[in-house]
């Protein structure tokens, strides 16, 4: 699935609203581009790659995205976001550690190396607290723990899971949020759009039915989102912010292969997200040539 003629590749096994619109925007700009299906991709380390030299990583599977980016980079390809950015964004602990090291606000987080140690971490943080899988998205398996008995039960389940990674437990203070969080889309170091995501569920993921509403791009919000994206090395990022009860903003996570269908529908004709990403990719490809 490669062609020497295409200058830009879009790495994706699933062509959804986002990928389709990015490919269309690239074509509209007259850029030779192609979809690269990672299910058919293999790369020999250290050899040159006969496909596009600039690739946008839109693969939905984290591990496939991570290793495809790494493999393509080893063959000299420029990948957005980089494998390093995907490694940090795709792992909640790596993200928390990077944000803290940069001095950015983020909810207190403890990494417990065993389920037993996690019980102590829950006691330290106080209840309610949140246990999240290190790798995962769309709010899947994120668990709100309201007391010690519930903590013991959840951790017993984690201890019984076969994967060693499941026994490393990410525990976070719960932010008592109203009914919304904020998603800021950052492209090329600039915040281009933001939405409130409202939900009656305590998890405000659009994938769980949250409703998007346009959020004003105010300075505190854009500065923090751009700094968070920069911290993890992501050129294209969906930065999730929460508002503390006193109004201060805190960074929850950074998404490196951001979905933007909800944000796009909120902005209508006032913003073309796919075109903004296509423009950045064209710029990068131009710089590479």
């Amino acid at each position: 699935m490669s062609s020497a003629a295409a200058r830009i590749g879009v790495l994706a096994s699933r062509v959804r609203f986002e990928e389709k619109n990015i490919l269309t925007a690239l074509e509209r700009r007259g850029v030779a581009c192609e979809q690269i299906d990672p299910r058919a991709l293999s790369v020999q380390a250290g050899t040159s790659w006969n496909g596009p030299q600039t690739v946008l990583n839109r693969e939905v599977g984290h591990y496939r995205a991570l290793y495809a980016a790494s493999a393509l980079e080893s063959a000299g390809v420029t990948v957005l976001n980089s494998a390093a950015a995907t490694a940090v964004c795709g792992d909640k602990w790596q993200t928390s550690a990077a944000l803290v090291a940069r001095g950015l606000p983020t909810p207190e987080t403890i990494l417990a190396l065993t389920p037993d140690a996690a019980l102590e971490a829950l006691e330290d943080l106080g209840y309610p607290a949140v246990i999240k899988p290190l790798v995962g998205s769309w709010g899947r398996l994120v668990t709100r723990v309201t007391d010690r008995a519930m903590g013991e039960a959840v951790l017993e389940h984690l201890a019984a899971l076969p994967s060693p990674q499941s026994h490393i437990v990410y525990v976070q203070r719960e932010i008592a949020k109203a009914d919304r969080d904020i998603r800021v889309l950052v492209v090329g170091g600039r915040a281009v759009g933001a939405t409130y995501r409202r939900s009656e569920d305590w998890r405000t993921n659009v994938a769980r039915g949250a409703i998007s509403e346009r959020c004003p791009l105010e300075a505190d919000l854009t500065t923090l989102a751009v700094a968070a994206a920069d911290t993890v090395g992501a050129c294209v990022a969906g930065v999730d912010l929460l508002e503390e009860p006193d109004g201060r903003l805190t960074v929850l996570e950074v998404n490196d292969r951001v979905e933007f269908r909800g944000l796009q529908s909120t902005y209508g004709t006032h913003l073309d997200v796919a075109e903004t990403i296509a423009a950045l990719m064209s710029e990068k490809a131009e710089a590479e040539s």
Partner: protein
Amino acid sequence: MQETLIAPECPECDAAVPLGTDARVSEIVECPECRLELEIESVQPPRLLLAPEVEEDWGE
């Protein structure tokens, strides 16, 4: 609405699944009858597959 290009059969329920003229390989579409997610395997000739199941590490 995109003009309909062709309507291949759903591999699950045989219903006609209309594809727009802008259909792309690997695009995910939904069967209007059984609501299953389908993947466009080929545009010319039009062929549909059942879309892969969501995996644990999928996301954004």
